[in-house]
């Protein structure tokens, strides 16, 4: 089975400016990939090229084994694309709009009703079927945007910032929607909300200044960039004393106070999580009341900050 997306040397110039330069990556069928990058890093341009909205300046892109330059028409049948601003006609009702989108992507008129009902079911937009898009809340608009992308049951879903501008409740709902779609489609999504990517995606692609600076699972990137990892300890007593004692253990580096209130401190220690027994023993022997000790969670934010800081300008 060919990879769903295979990108080799993809470059896109806007005039003299290279928005993306020599991108290389592959995405397997059924994967959920998070596309990370700062504003202007080249995420949207890459997604637009993969969505066949823009044509590349150089390089080769194949989607489901089909070359984007040779048969973009056929590729467009196999993808569903949600741009950063959902392409919604505000004067239409949700039902009519989705029917239009389905027929535009080649769903026969006789089957469009069923396809629309399924898309509405998956995105929980059934209750606004007859409402004008102009009257919808931002959350519903975003979900209708997702519905138009999947109404023709594409193999590949490309979602550019699907949680942009949503409130926390809507973000949770959108996350549930994407979880539902997992397995049915290969999904490539970009987001600024790193926890969103962390909870939803199997693998990450990090882009900076138009170039891929890292790819892999969050755990892979954490072990590659996070040194020996971290240990989190919760202690009753002064955090400074706890850090001082913990650092007497060989292999434990700097300590950071994450939280301190009512005499209880949460401290993060640089060091291999396998050193937890030694740290616990040292703290107890040093007279510190140890309430909890755990492996420090690999934080996507710190991985992302390291990657974007290390990327060449």
């Amino acid at each position, binding site marked *: 089975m060919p990879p769903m997306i295979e990108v080799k040397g993809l470059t896109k110039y806007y005039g003299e400016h290279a928005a993306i330069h020599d991108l290389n990556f592959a995405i397997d069928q059924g994967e959920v990939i998070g596309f990370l990058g700062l504003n202007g890093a080249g995420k949207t341009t890459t997604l637009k090229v993969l969505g*066949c909205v823009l044509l590349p300046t150089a390089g080769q892109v194949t989607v489901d084994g089909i070359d984007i330059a040779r048969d973009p028409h056929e590729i467009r049948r196999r993808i569903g694309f949600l741009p950063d601003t959902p392409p919604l006609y505000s004067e239409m009702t949700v039902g009519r709009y989705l029917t239009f989108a389905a027929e535009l992507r080649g769903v026969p008129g006789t089957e469009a009703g069923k396809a629309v009902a399924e898309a509405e079911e998956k995105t929980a937009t059934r209750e606004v079927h007859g409402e004008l898009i102009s009257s919808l809340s931002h959350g519903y608009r975003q979900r209708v945007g997702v519905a138009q992308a999947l109404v023709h049951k594409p193999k590949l879903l490309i979602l550019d910032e699907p949680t942009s501008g949503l409130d926390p409740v809507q973000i949770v709902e959108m996350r549930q929607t994407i979880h539902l779609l997992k397995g049915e489609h290969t999904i490539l999504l970009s987001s600024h909300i790193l926890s969103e990517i962390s909870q939803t995606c199997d693998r990450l692609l990090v882009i900076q200044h138009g170039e891929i600076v890292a790819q892999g699972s969050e755990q892979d990137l954490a072990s590659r960039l996070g040194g020996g990892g971290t240990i989190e300890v919760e202690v009753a007593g002064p955090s400074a004393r706890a850090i001082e004692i913990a650092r007497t253990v060989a292999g434990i580096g700097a300590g950071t106070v994450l939280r301190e209130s009512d005499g209880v401190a949460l401290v993060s220690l640089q060091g291999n999580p396998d050193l937890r027994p030694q740290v616990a023993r040292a703290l107890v022997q040093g007279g510190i009341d140890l309430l909890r000790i755990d492996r420090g969670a690999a934080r996507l934010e710190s991985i992302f900050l390291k990657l974007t800081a290390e990327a060449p300008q």
Partner: protein
Amino acid sequence: MNATLLIARRELGAYLRSMTGYVIAAAVLIINGLLFNAFALGGPDKLSAEVLSLFFYFSSGTTIIASVFISMRLLAEERQTGTLVLLTSSPVHDWEIVLGKFLSAFAFLALITLATVYMPALIFVNGKISFGHLVAGYLGLLLLGSATLAIGTFGSALARTQVLAAIFSGCMVVALIVCWLLAKVTERPLQDVFVAMALHGKHFPPFQSGTVHLRDVVYYLMVTYVALFSATRVMEARRWR
């Protein structure tokens, strides 16, 4: 072709559901009615054919202006609101998008134009006009509208906003109209070129007086084709930018 009709149907629905469509239609009908009453019916006594000819003359002006305003939104508005991506990421050719948009605008203009038929009907009831004159006049209006709408579609493909689209297409239409005036102050062979290009002065008067020349029909169809072809090329070029 199915996609073209889908796009045309949706776009025509947008005209009929939007305030802008009704404002343009109302403005055209009011201005046409006032001009008809003031200049065609007013003044010294005229033959019915002269009244009908004047009606078509004034209607051609409102048709040109209405076409610029109807077409300015076609692609520029979609680009402004970000909805063009729905079409460009779908399995639809750029020419199908352009043709679908154009057909919807043409259908809307045809509806407005046909709504003016009560004025010739008044002449028909109170005077004597030939049916052929009526058909030729309306054919001329529709062909003129088709050419102007196609130029407007091209302007809308070029521009990022509707206002810019109206300015671009307005300039192109005025340039083609002014060709007729330039022809009067130039000598051959340049004069022949200007005459051949004149959007209104050379090619519309025969329709106005009830005569259909093949060369005029071909001219308007050619302008329509060239403008729509150019709009398609602009759409294709934007994918490379």
